[in-house]
């Protein structure tokens, strides 16, 4: 039998997906054997029964059956175990007062348990460990669960809010667009209308355009308000990277702009420098963008760069500050 065919056929009742396309497969976390829905109904309706697979003696219950999410049974199994363990071991970083080492140790422990359960190492002992921990920390687990739920709720709320806002914004934008089209149409018609009466064409066009400009729609105003809300919305900035406020100061390599007050005034005529002036008359230099005033500017900058740095004093102060 082909593997592909096997995949689409229930091994118990031999129903094929080809013949009954609505067929669903279910698995039980006890043994992860694939059984079709109707077989599950048929075999387990009367209470727990043995797995119908040959050689599998696990007793299965109907209420434990679930749809398989992952194709790979190994993955499915691990995810289930992980879910179960993390329901019990549900501490977060906050429970450790920021002690990263302790938190990491805890995570390592959790991973060990998951690994053991997944690979069948010391299962009995590990299960025992899990149970003891659960008994001992019932209170904490409950409160953590509650907190997680709260977080999730917050997150959902936030998502909902954002979605709403975005929808509203899009609506308003569409409205504005429509209005603009209408306005243009109106202006065109109005111009034609008025031109039939008046003589000065330019005057008419100007006045109509002015009226259109004044017709700032209410939708536009609403959009502005909405944008303001969005900007001030604390949710938005954390979750939505796209809408994060941009830095109001543009990037500058030295953390600030160059001083506007220079220590020199670049004179247009005063400099007599035979060498540079000669270069200015050479074609090969001018062609590549050579300009004498650039050279002068650079030289003058260089001349005053660091003139006010009292190196010794500054280093001494830095040293003193370093000591104290």
């Amino acid at each position, binding site marked *: 039998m082909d593997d592909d065919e096997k995949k689409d056929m229930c091994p118990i009742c031999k129903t094929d997906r080809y013949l009954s396309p609505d067929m669903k497969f279910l698995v039980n976390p006890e043994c992860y054997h694939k059984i079709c829905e109707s077989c599950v109904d048929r075999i387990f309706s009367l209470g727990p029964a043995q797995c119908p697979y040959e050689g599998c003696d696990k007793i299965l219950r109907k209420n434990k059956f679930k749809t398989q999410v992952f194709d790979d049974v190994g993955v499915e199994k691990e995810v289930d175990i992980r879910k179960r363990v*993390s329901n019990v071991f*549900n*501490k*977060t*970083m906050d429970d450790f007062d920021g002690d990263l080492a302790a938190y990491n140790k805890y995570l390592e422990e959790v991973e060990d348990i998951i690994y053991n359960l997944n690979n069948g190492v010391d299962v009995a002992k590990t299960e025992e460990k899990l149970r003891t921990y659960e008994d001992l920390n019932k209170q904490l687990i409950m409160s953590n669960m509650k907190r*997680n739920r709260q*977080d*999730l709720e*917050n*997150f959902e709320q*936030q998502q909902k809010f954002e979605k709403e806002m975005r929808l509203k914004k899009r609506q308003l934008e569409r409205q504005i667009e429509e209005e603009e089209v209408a306005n243009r149409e109106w202006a065109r018609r109005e111009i034609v209308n008025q031109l039939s009466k008046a003589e000065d064409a330019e005057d008419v066009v100007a006045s109509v355009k002015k009226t259109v400009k004044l017709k700032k729609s209410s939708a536009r105003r609403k959009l502005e308000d909405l944008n303001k809300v969005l900007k001030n919305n*604390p*949710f938005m*900035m*954390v*979750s939505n990277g796209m809408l*994060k*406020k941009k830095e*109001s*100061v543009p990037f*500058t390599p*030295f*953390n*600030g*702009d*160059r*001083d*506007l*007050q*220079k*220590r*020199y*005034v670049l*004179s247009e005529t*005063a*400099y*007599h*420098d035979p060498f540079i002036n000669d270069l200015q008359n050479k074609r090969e230099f001018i062609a590549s963008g050579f300009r004498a005033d650039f050279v*002068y500017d650079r*030289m*003058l*900058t*260089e*001349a*005053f*760069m*660091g*003139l*006010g*740095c*009292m*190196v*010794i004093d500054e*280093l*001494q102060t830095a*040293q003193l500050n370093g000591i104290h």
Partner: protein
Amino acid sequence: MTNTPTPSGSVDATKVQPIQRVSDDDLYRHSSQYRMWSFTPEQLAQKRVEINARAATVLETRVRSFLEQNPDLGSDEVAAITEKAVPVTADEEVLLVNYFARMLLTFATKMNLPTEVAATAVTFFRRFYLNNSVMDIVPKEIFYTTLFFACKSENFFIGIDSFAKKTKSKNEDVLKYEFRLLESLQFTLMNHHPFKALHGFFLDIQNILQGKVDLNYMGQVYTNCKKTIMEAILTDVVYFYSPPQITLAALLKEDEALAMRYLDLKFANEDSPGVLHLETLRTVIVACKDTMSANAVPSKEQATRTVAKIHFGQNPLSVVERMRRQRESASPP
């Protein structure tokens, strides 16, 4: 274990920062020359003493182990070794480095290299010996390397083959310590030499003292100042003062009246914020000039003596051989 970010975190990030202004001085403070190669005189002296002490300890241990390994030496030979194979002092080191730096300058001039290359080579050479002792690597071994490397870093590239040919040295000798040099320079290759500042001041003086100064005379002052600055690069002022200050000090040395007149006119009547205080500036420049003038030119004898000392320290055996040779020639069979 979901950890959803709390929305309160980044609200304060929206505050508008006031625009900062970065002055030209701040630009210089960002340079590697300021951050890594500027010192107070005390710091510099301490640095040199430390480097010297480190190398001296290594050398002394080596001599001691040599004596232990050769127990068959005569007592006079041992005495000669303990007398001759001694580490050089920090002062001797400085003198030797300066002597070779001067040689480097002459050599670069002879090779017709641009001023920048020569100055950079000297700077690299002197900086190298702020992190290494002449007892670790003798100046001769690094001499051509610095020059070759300065050519590269100043965009005046000469291929290693032609460089070796021109300097009559071997390729591998030149390249041997190249990385060590780069490492000792802490990979900072940008040099702010006072020459550019000199050019700038030369222009600014023409502007400020327009019509009051003869242009031909200015050209002469410029050439002389360049020479003075070349001398200044061989001194410690490069570690203590910024390039424009050194330039002004050179100008002061060349023509005090001109320099003072220029400074008076330039900085006297400016009251706007961030402007230099004339009096402080003048003090610094005069101090710089004094340090510049105080520098002693090391003589050839001094240098040879130090080189010999290093040689004996590195090879104690040569002391013995020399003694034996002398003895043989003194009493022919």
